[in-house]
């Protein structure tokens, strides 16, 4: 059923209920002794409209799923379905095609069987559509009856509407939480499937990463699933090289902006810096791959390195560091600005220079906030994918040479999930195990960082 039908139905019936309820409230109002009601007529109107539209929409959400099952059952019970192949891809293709023809999304059939099957689909769809609309109308009627029975001069429609709005807000906020929970459950589930095939010890402590998506899924070689090179690559690029770039530059720009920049300049530079955070990471990625990586290779050649890789951890790390600067600088900026002016005055009044004051009083006082910012930046950096995909290759290597090509956890997740392996192959499931580890690490980092920042805030309030 097209989504327009329930939406129009809900809108139309809701509007009707709204108008009728308001008219009714006005008659109450005229009859009331002082022309006053417990709530304005528009609240009566909204109360009725919501009681009509919301249950209707909820019903159609459920019905959309349920009717699909019912239609399928109906069609499979029809005589035409007997001619279908019993199992396999062809059966599924024919069924999908027939359904497409029946609801008009597929113009031309590739399989003749599907044309025959389209007719039962057509019947089933129209039948269940009618049933759905009928039940929907009943539910809307029930909602309307419920609402209109309660409309009285002293009915507190205002607080009732308030409560409905509250419920809507609560549901909206639950969506994000439930999604996170769902992601977590999926990850855990798939990770345990993976650990059923490869032991967690081999995975977490092995030093060879070379999954074979084409190998026998029932007898995988655990020695090919050692994730240490990936963890190392992630830490080396995201937490070492990127931070060597981002921490000093971010700190210095924060110090300049809070302590030295004139307000007029700060007004321009700070937003300009924050624009960096809004650049899509893909854009950074091709900057890293096309500009920075060849440049680094040329320098390595000039310095006498033999056959340097065109994809290097250094290129990815440098560009990632630049990307992270706004995270570090804006947290450092906030924390330094939050150190009371009295500290600064106290130090200056002792005869300290501005520089001494910053180094010995402001930065130490702001340190917890700065550390929190850096940790958030690290968790952002190790979760970053695009730059590394484009600039640091997909070959795992356990090396401390920044000019080597390296790979990270996120890059491998992409490689494994977009590879040709089937979804129950350990090489594909390994992606979930990697994602799970990454999820835990970034969660822990964020958690600790937020605690640190919070403690810091409390210290100065």
């Amino acid at each position: 059923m097209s989504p327009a039908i329930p939406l129009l139905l809900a809108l139309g019936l809701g509007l009707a209920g709204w108008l009728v309820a308001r008219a009714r409230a006005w008659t109450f109002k005229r009859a009331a002794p002082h022309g006053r009601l417990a709530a304005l007529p528009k609240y009566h109107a909204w109360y009725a409209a919501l009681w009509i539209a919301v249950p209707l929409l909820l019903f159609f959400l459920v019905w959309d799923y349920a009717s699909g099952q019912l239609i399928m059952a109906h069609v499979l019970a029809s005589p035409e379905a007997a001619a279908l192949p019993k199992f396999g891809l062809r059966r599924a293709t024919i069924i999908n095609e027939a359904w497409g023809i029946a609801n008009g999304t597929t113009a031309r059939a590739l399989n003749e069987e599907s044309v025959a099957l389209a007719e039962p689909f057509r019947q089933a769809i129209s039948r269940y559509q009618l049933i759905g609309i009928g039940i929907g109308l009943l539910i809307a009627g029930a909602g309307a009856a419920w609402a209109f029975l309660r409309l009285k001069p002293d009915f507190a429609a205002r607080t009732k509407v308030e409560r409905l709005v509250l419920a809507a807000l609560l549901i909206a906020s639950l969506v994000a939480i439930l999604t996170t929970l769902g992601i977590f459950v999926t990850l855990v589930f798939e990770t345990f499937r993976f650990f059923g095939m490869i032991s967690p010890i081999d995975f977490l402590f092995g030093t060879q990463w070379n999954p074979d998506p084409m190998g026998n899924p029932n007898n995988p070689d655990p020695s090919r699933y050692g994730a240490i090179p990936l963890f190392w690559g992630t830490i080396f690029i995201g937490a070492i090289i990127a931070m060597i770039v981002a921490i000093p530059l971010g700190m210095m720009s924060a110090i300049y902006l809070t302590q030295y920049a004139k307000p007029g300049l700060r007004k321009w530079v700070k937003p300009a810096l924050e624009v960096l955070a809004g650049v899509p990471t893909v854009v950074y990625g091709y900057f890293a791959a096309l500009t920075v990586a060849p440049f680094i290779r040329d320098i390595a050649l000039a310095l006498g390195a033999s056959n340097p890789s065109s994809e290097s951890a250094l290129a990815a790390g440098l560009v990632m560091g630049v990307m992270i600067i706004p995270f570090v600088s804006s947290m450092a900026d906030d924390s330094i600005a939050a150190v009371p002016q009295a500290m600064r005055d106290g130090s200056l009044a002792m005869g300290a220079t501005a520089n001494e004051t910053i180094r010995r009083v402001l930065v130490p006082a702001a340190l917890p906030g700065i550390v929190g910012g850096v940790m958030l930046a690290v968790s952002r950096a190790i979760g970053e994918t695009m730059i590394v995909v484009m600039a640091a290759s997909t070959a795992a290597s356990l090396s401390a040479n920044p000019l080597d090509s390296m790979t990270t956890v996120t890059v491998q997740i992409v490689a494994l999930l977009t590879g040709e392996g089937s979804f129950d192959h350990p090489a594909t499931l390994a992606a979930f195990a990697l994602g799970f580890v990454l999820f835990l690490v970034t969660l822990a980092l964020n958690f600790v960082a937020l605690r640190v920042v919070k403690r810091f805030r409390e210290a100065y309030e």
Partner: protein
Amino acid sequence: MVMTEETAANPSFAEQAIEHNANAPGLDESVEPSDIKMRARDVSIYYGAKKAIDEVSVDVFTEHVTAFIGPSGCGKSTFLRALNRMNDTIPSARVEGTIELDGEDIYASGMDVVQLRARVGMVFQKPNPFPKSIYENIAYGPRIHGLAEGKGELDAIVEKSLRRAGLWDEVKDRLTDSGTALSGGQQQRLCIARAIAVDPEVILMDEPCSALDPIATAKIEELIDDLRGRYAIVIVTHSMQQAARVSQRTAFFHLGHLVEYGHTSDIFTNPREQRTQDYITGRYG
């Protein structure tokens, strides 16, 4: 002696002060001109276009406590902060006139502000110890100015400063504790010790007791009295009683003008100006 903006430009002001001092029995020993530590002449201070201080002339004497009193917003703190150029941190602030420290113009272009502030220390209204240990709070100034060679000398400076601030006995066993963990009164004495540690010649105090309870206030006042023998002290205060208790000289500010300046006993018992009389008797302010 009447000290208003009309007579502020009078160069013989210092002599008048001495003469007056000599004629006032029961006051401190007579002050020689060489005992003038800081000399402000025709000082006007602007915040942008707003004039906060209008042609004020005041002398600060060695081994004296000079109190600045006056209602809120009269400019006394602004003037105090001009004495060690703390107003430099406010971009819109501008100072006219001359302020001399030992005859040297502190607003001259060659003046090293860092050195000036080492010689003219400051204690603020709200205690502002650094979020460091008690020891490090005191050691901060000597370290940045290189006053101590080696740990032993630094330890000695820390102990001496804490002793002078009357805090040593209370904190000697917990020098590594955070300075912010002390009580309000102790924090303020820590800040005074911190200012003393760089061995200044003048100590400016901006309402040092306004955030403290009466007992802590009494301790600070006692301390100010002890310190008077070594430093020239300038204190801004809202409390007339405090000015009367701790100071030898008092300057009464009103709306950016210096209304009256003279011996504290004269200001409080025998003011020349009606406005001073009204203020100290609580008619306004």
